[in-house]
């Protein structure tokens, strides 16, 4: 105790408070985040009369609370939509454009007072599987079955690009509208290829050959967003789907015991990617770069290829030289592939949801229905430089940038040969585990066989998820 012998000396007090600080400071910020708001009281939703023009019964002059992810697409499109919505329904919209979806909305979901429409996207999105498990998502099936705004004789469902409904389905229920249509694959500079006299490869061997030529020319072959192994996973998974066919893809989504292990297509795909590493055809240092760092290096002609989705062009708008001539390339084929070269991963991104406990749920549903009109779809294309899931939803007058144009061309060439994985939305933990393995593979710290083993272990673990019964595709 204190040297003064009078109980608590000053120094002891300081020591004790320091000890208390040691306990509380590191843990407090996380723990206090754990505190939930408890059951909030949901006030009775405003309801209008249900008519043919107003299938969900939106109340005139109500309030609409919209939260959108303000990422690569900005949020101007949403403001334009809200203005249109307010004009039609006499509502007052409140708008929040943010990157911190989780930070801003978690307490609201917990408190039972979520917004009416959410664009749940970006790095800090709230995982859909988690929201679904917690019964926080409204069923959007009524929107699909409602009459379309453009042609009331047709249902909204009939105007969507194939796969949209499947992708927004969790546990057999349609809960999220993935609005932006995205294609995935490699990207290259048309200008660089022309200059060097390279042609876009169609087989993996040709791909490696271009990478080798790039290396001779003193630049990297393949760049990838090493800090986020998500991107290189797209390449691995697409190679598996193209070589093994759609069954190989579904085996992974359905968590089958031979999804990776004992699947020849999977091993061949991983070995093909590993060949890039082994032959030293990566952009030096790319394994530790962020997406912006590696994409910018690629924009500076430091590498021939980079994998990404079709948001790449919009994301890199400022870094891309004017004459870069961005071009899309479907993932090249391995020998004996079941799908043709033109086949691409195409899917809908930017999931819009309506929370189950939204105060103006009818307004939320009507908002979603309006998004699927040609008018709103064109608004989006103009403001955000991207395509939507509405079939022919963009006015032909809108001029597209070269990358987006090449993606549209590729999409047309693919026809019905598009595919899309679902496990990333269904099983976050499995996705993360496979990404970790890919990071190790690219850094040459594990071999393809070890990757297969780890990926299968992740699949087997996910199979124990209680939702695994419901999340099945055929």
């Amino acid at each position, binding site marked *: 105790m204190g040297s003064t012998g009078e109980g608590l000396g000053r120094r002891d007090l300081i020591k004790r408070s320091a000890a208390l600080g040691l306990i509380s400071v590191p843990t407090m910020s*996380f723990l206090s985040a*754990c505190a939930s708001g408890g059951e909030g009281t949901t006030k009775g939703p405003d309801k209008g009369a249900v008519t043919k023009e107003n299938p969900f019964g939106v109340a005139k002059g109500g309030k609409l609370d919209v939260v959108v992810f303000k990422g690569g697409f900005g949020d101007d499109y949403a403001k334009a939509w809200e203005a249109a919505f307010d004009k039609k329904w006499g509502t007052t919209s409140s708008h929040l454009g943010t990157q911190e979806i989780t930070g801003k909305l978690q307490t609201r979901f917990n408190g039972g007072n979520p917004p009416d429409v959410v664009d749940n996207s970006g790095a800090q999105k709230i*995982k859909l599987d988690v929201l679904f498990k917690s019964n926080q998502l409204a069923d959007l099936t009524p929107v699909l079955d409602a009459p379309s705004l453009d042609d009331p004789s047709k249902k909204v469902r009939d105007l969507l690009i194939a796969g949209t409904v499947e992708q927004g389905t969790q546990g057999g229920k349609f809960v999220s509208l993935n609005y932006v249509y995205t294609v995935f694959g490699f990207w290259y500079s048309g200008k660089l290829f022309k200059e060097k006299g390279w042609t876009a490869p169609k087989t993996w061997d040709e791909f490696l050959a271009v990478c080798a030529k790039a290396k001779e020319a003193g630049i990297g072959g393949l760049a990838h967003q090493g800090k986020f192994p998500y991107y290189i996973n797209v390449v691995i998974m697409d190679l598996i789907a193209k070589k093994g066919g759609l069954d190989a893809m579904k085996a992974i989504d359905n968590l089958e015991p031979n999804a990776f292990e004992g699947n020849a297509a999977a091993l061949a795909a991983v070995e093909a990617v590993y060949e890039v590493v082994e032959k030293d055809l990566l952009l030096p240092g790319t394994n530790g770069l962020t997406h912006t760092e590696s994409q910018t290096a690629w924009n500076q002609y430091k590498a021939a290829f980079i994998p990404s989705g079709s948001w790449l062009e919009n994301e890199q708008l400022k870094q891309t030289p004017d004459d870069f001539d961005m071009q899309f390339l479907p993932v090249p084929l391995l020998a004996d592939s079941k799908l043709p070269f033109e086949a691409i991963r195409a899917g809908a991104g930017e999931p819009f949801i309506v929370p189950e406990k939204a105060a103006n749920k009818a307004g939320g549903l009507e908002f979603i229905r309006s998004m699927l009109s040609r008018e709103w779809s064109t608004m989006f294309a103009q403001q955000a430089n991207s395509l939507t899931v509405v079939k022919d939803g963009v006015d032909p007058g809108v001029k597209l940038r070269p990358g987006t144009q090449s993606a549209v061309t590729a999409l047309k060439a693919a026809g019905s040969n598009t595919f899309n994985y679902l496990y990333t939305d269904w099983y*976050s933990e499995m996705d993360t585990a496979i990404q*970790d393995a890919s990071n190790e593979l690219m850094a040459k710290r594990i071999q393809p066989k070890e990757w297969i083993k780890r990926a299968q272990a992740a699949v087997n673990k996910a199979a124990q998820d209680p939702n695994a019964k419901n999340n099945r595709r055929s």
Partner: protein
Amino acid sequence: MSQVAQGRGRGGFIAGFLLAPLALYLTFVIWPYVQTFGYSFTNWTGQSPTFDFVGVDNYAALMKDEVFRGALWNNLLLLVFVPVVTILLALFFAFMVNAGGRGGAGGVQGVRGSGFYKIVYFFPQVLSLAILAVLFGAVYRTDEGGLLNGVLIRLGLVDRLHPVEWLNEPRLVLWCLLLVVVWHGVGFYLVLFSAAMQSVPKDIYEAALLDGAGRAQTFFKVTLPLLWDSVQTSAVYLGIAAMDMFVLVSTMTSGQFGGGPDHHSEVMATVLMRNFLYFGKSGYACAMGVVMLVLTMILSVITLRATRRERIEF
């Protein structure tokens, strides 16, 4: 007025001042802990007010969680190295700045330009951790655009085609992070120790000098014992930094909330956050929080016990 009434009045007066802070403390510090403890026995997803009671399942799973165990180990490593390295460096610099100079006619003084050094050393402390993460992100960048790689490649020590992947290298990542923390902390503790050293009466140093003590002897026999209280407090605070590390690890390393490559830089807080916000296993994450709480409590008791010394009065 009687003595008793007077006493009671004073008691009420004091209680009035104590109750409000106590209530705030209970509401905003203790209550979340209690809640967390409760949640740790549930399968709460973090996105819903409904959940089931699952008993000690979360704790049982935690015992088998290799990622969490690895994170715990990393925290313990940092807990040893962060305070030791920071305090040693800070003490050394503080001594040089205050008493390390050549004893001239005036007796005890710092090395030449010590006032300037004191200011420069303090610079890192004014930077927030977020800025630090960006700054050192550029230092550790894995291609030749990174400061370290750029210099090493220029010097011919590293192959241009195979730069060092600092934060993507399992054996290096933790040490790279340690360096950032130490770089950040040394200046502050240098100033703290300087202040403590300056409060030591000069005649003690002069006596030591007259007795023929060298710099090393002066430091170990005179400076260090007189500074012990400051060193102890520093150890506790650096312990806090080492047990946390969340901001740096989550922003600088790969993986959801950091911890990469392949969990090699994982600390408990990053595992907790990933489970809490990304995997939707908030109940499980709360169990981690409780374990962290217990561990830090044990460690703080040990730190204070182990560093207890007889106080020297001057």
